[in-house]
């Protein structure tokens, strides 16, 4: 017998859980300002996340999926993307979206049950949040194909979770991206849990990164709690994709510190000790340790940042709460470019019905 193929997967980490440097830092990380920008982004998304949960718990927001513990993945990706790139994200990537220019008011609107939250004023070409698992991967392939066809220096960045790598949509997507050498970067957040199914139960594959190799392109594993590692890997792979080098898959290994959503109770299926241990590796504190140790950050900076983040988040939440619901018959507005005549009567019926409800509310 002869060996016809063999593989290895590299793991990238620059900061250990205490914020100590374990490998020579990449060039961008030599600049404290760049790291402070990443830190600020992570703190803002964590503040936003806490507010979203608070709004949900007080009945002012619908079911919400927390990004707690994932801040380094999101900041690392968000800071690496160019304006003209296209983001494909799941419900747990609001942090990247904020960095892309989606407003927190829009995100609150989305979780508050209003389609207008996906009409981003900022990144007009970014896809809306995708809930059906891995189905966005196929869209990223289509956008990647269009970009390549038009020879544009743009990249489709497709985010997904560990559970998503079990789906056919994912395999079909990486296969096609590899076959056509498309400018698509797949960022898999391996947070160890797909609701209640652990990473070990999900697949016998030793890493998720190695799945890319079966599709004929590189896969790399990074410490998803080390924003320097994530950002470095994404920057490099985006540059590669932009210059015609084809797709890459990055597996960011982290931990879902929160429940799956506000409708979930993770204590039913995972031990508290595991969560407590994961908190020791969490990404925000890790970078703060590094910045503080190197003298780039202090308590006064921290307090000022928290105040700014709180102000921003409060203002966005208030703007969301102050936004009235759309008129009921607006559910017909964007069903088609022009509403077919066949649905005019249905639209009128919804309008009439809503007027009756209104009349009842006005005159109890």
């Amino acid at each position, binding site marked *: 017998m002869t060996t016809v193929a063999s593989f290895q997967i590299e793991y990238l980490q620059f900061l250990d859980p205490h914020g100590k440097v374990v490998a020579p830092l990449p060039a961008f990380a030599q600049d404290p300002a760049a790291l402070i920008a990443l830190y600020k982004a992570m703190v803002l998304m964590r503040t936003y996340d806490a507010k979203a949960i608070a709004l949900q718990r007080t009945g002012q927001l619908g079911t919400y999926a927390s990004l707690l513990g994932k801040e380094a993945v999101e900041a690392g990706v968000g800071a690496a993307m160019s304006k003209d790139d*296209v983001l494909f994200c799941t419900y747990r990537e609001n942090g990247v979206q904020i960095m892309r220019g989606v407003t927190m008011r829009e995100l609150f609107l989305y979780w508050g049950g209003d*389609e*207008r939250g*996906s*009409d*981003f004023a900022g990144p*007009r*070409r970014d*896809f*809306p949040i995708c809930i*059906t698992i891995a*189905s966005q*991967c*196929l*869209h*990223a*392939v*289509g*956008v*990647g*194909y*269009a*970009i390549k*066809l038009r020879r544009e220096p743009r990249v*489709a960045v497709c985010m997904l979770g560990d559970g998503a790598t079990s789906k*056919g*949509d994912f395999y*079909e*997507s990486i*296969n*096609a991206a590899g*076959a056509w050498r498309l400018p698509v970067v797949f960022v898999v957040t391996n947070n160890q849990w797909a609701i209640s199914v652990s990473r070990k139960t999900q697949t016998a594959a030793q890493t998720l990164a190695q799945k890319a190799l079966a599709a004929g392109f590189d896969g790399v594993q990074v410490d998803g709690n080390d924003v320097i590692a994530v950002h470095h890997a994404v920057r490099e792979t985006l540059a590669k994709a932009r210059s015609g080098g084809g797709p890459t898959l990055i597996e960011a290994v982290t931990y879902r510190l929160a429940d799956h959503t506000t409708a979930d109770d993770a204590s039913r299926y995972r031990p508290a000790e595991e969560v407590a241990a994961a908190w020791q590796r969490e990404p925000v504190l890790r970078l703060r340790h590094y910045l503080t140790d190197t003298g780039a950050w202090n308590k006064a900076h921290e307090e000022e940042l928290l105040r700014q983040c709180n102000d921003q988040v409060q203002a966005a939440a208030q703007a969301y709460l102050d936004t009235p619901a759309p008129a009921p018959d607006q*559910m017909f*507005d*964007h*069903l*088609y*470019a022009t509403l*077919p*005549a*066949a*649905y005019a009567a249905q639209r009128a019926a919804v309008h009439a019905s809503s007027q009756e409800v209104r009349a009842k509310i006005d005159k109890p």
Partner: protein
Amino acid sequence: MAQIALVEAVNLALARAMADDPDVVVLGQDVGRDGGVFRATLGLLEKFGSERVIDTPLAENLIVGMSIGMAAEGLKPVAEIQFSGFSYTTIDQILNHAGRMRHRTRGRLSCPLVVRTPCGAGIHPPEHHSESPDAMFAHIPGIRVVYPSSPKRAYGLLLAAIRDPDPVVFLEPTRLYRLFKEEVNDNAEALALDVCFTLREGSDITLVTWGAMVYETLQVADELSEQGIAAEVIDVATLKPIDFDTILASVAKTGRCVVVTEAPRHCSIASEIAATLAENGLLTLLAPVQRITAPDVVVPLPRLEHHYLPGKRQILAAVKKSLEFA
């Protein structure tokens, strides 16, 4: 003007659309070098190149899913699914994404794409090659379902579907692909979507149908005509949304209606038409609306196929029953 078959009219429309609009791309399994298993895309690769005539990996869900990404970026993808029996894995993408991208982004992103697929029974194929999923697709909000029944309408409606700013599932009657020819003028003129075509005018009874069954229904109308019965024949053509106005107006004139489809009966488009006639046309009816459909069974393999497909005999019997109703 050349006499061409329906599948050649599809090919002609694709070539016309690609020549007129550089954003139109064709993708699917074997659509390039092979020209498609039915040859609907024959010659397109040579004319427009492999970047726009795309042989995809063998993955239907990919074909439709990536079309959504392409469409959102401003391309106009025309995807081919080899047989409608292979289209079921794509319903997730059509239902969860193509049909709602415009709505969920309040018009920011849209999906001007076409999914073409051969549809219906009667060509004696293996299993999964004879399906009629028209009602399944028609149940999906935010899309159009179009089903031509002649070379001319295939040409004009496919051009319309490609130019339409919203997603269109374009069902092609496999049985009619090469059954007959007619003159088709390659004049780049699209036909209107969302309207029925009244193929034959008549005052005694309305026969409503679509797809391959239009062929048998027109033959029935000819036979009825010899007996002095004037049947009005309506090809619904766009199955979502349906132009009920034309159907209701016709039945208001004739008072009698038979709806003919080769799809299974339960929750069929024939049922929707019958329900609408009951709701909005009851007082114009002189006899109960009848549905001629396939039975609610799995499409049989070829040995029993002709017992499954409704034909002229059943349509004539229904017409007789309707006319004899007091």
